[in-house]
């Protein structure tokens, strides 16, 4: 079966290639991908998502769009942070941990501040701010 063998060999080569291309990207689930010290951004919300598996904000900080990861919908709404508070154009401060990759505009927020009002989406972590 030389044809079958050749087919299988090219399939393996393709598989290896896919793995090499896909694996090095960085994480955003949990905290393993973030730096340990707190970090803060201030900008304008361009897009907001309130839903599973967790809420996110896109925030324009001097022309760079930051992806701000929040908690799952339950804890997010328990913190009092709801969709009505975050329409596009809203000024926001996000405090949390930024990506360990310095080139990646992404952070996991612990506290969101809008109009001087604090929303601690990860209350136990926000205690340490």
């Amino acid at each position, binding site marked *: *079966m030389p044809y079958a063998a050749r087919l*299988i060999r090219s399939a393996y080569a393709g*598989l290896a290639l896919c793995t090499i291309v896909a694996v090095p990207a960085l994480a*955003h*689930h949990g905290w393993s991908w973030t730096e340990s010290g707190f970090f803060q951004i201030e900008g304008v919300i361009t897009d907001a998502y309130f*839903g599973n*598996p967790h809420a996110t904000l896109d925030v324009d900080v001097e022309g760079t769009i930051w992806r701000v990861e929040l908690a799952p919908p339950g804890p997010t709404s328990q913190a009092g942070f709801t969709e009505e508070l975050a329409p596009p154009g809203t000024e926001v401060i996000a405090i949390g941990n930024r990506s360990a990759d310095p080139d990646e505009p992404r952070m996991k927020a612990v506290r969101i501040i809008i109009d001087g009002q604090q929303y601690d989406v990860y209350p136990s972590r926000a205690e340490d701010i």
Partner: protein
Amino acid sequence: MTGFLELLQASPLATGLRGSFIAYPLVNATHILAIGALVTCAALMDLRVLGLGSALPVKIVLGYLRPVAAVALLIAIATGALLFSVRPLEYADNPAFRLKLILVSAAIANAVVYNLLPGNSASGLRKILVITSLILWLMAAVAGRFIGFVQ
């Protein structure tokens, strides 16, 4: 494609799942259970063809586990589609998700090829397909877990 994904995102099912505190984790759990059953069945069949558990005839092992694997696959696809519908545009762009789809498609194609082999096929060829199956299903499961960790 983007149009279809936007329609999917706006569907009542996706909208309901997006905001639910209970349904989403349940669908998620069902997805994981189905994958567990599928990968376990596939691995047991593969290992049997490779010689493990030789007290049980290959025909009986495959006859018993193949339908379980097929049902588990259908459940995994259905629940996976539901999880995908919550944020389709994000997931469609996710490299781990894309890799997982390639791996799952390859694993299914590999299983179909195995089942189409004529009865008198060389055992060497069968073993290559079965080892490929093991690698593909395990890699698909790992790629799936990485969806939450890459962007």
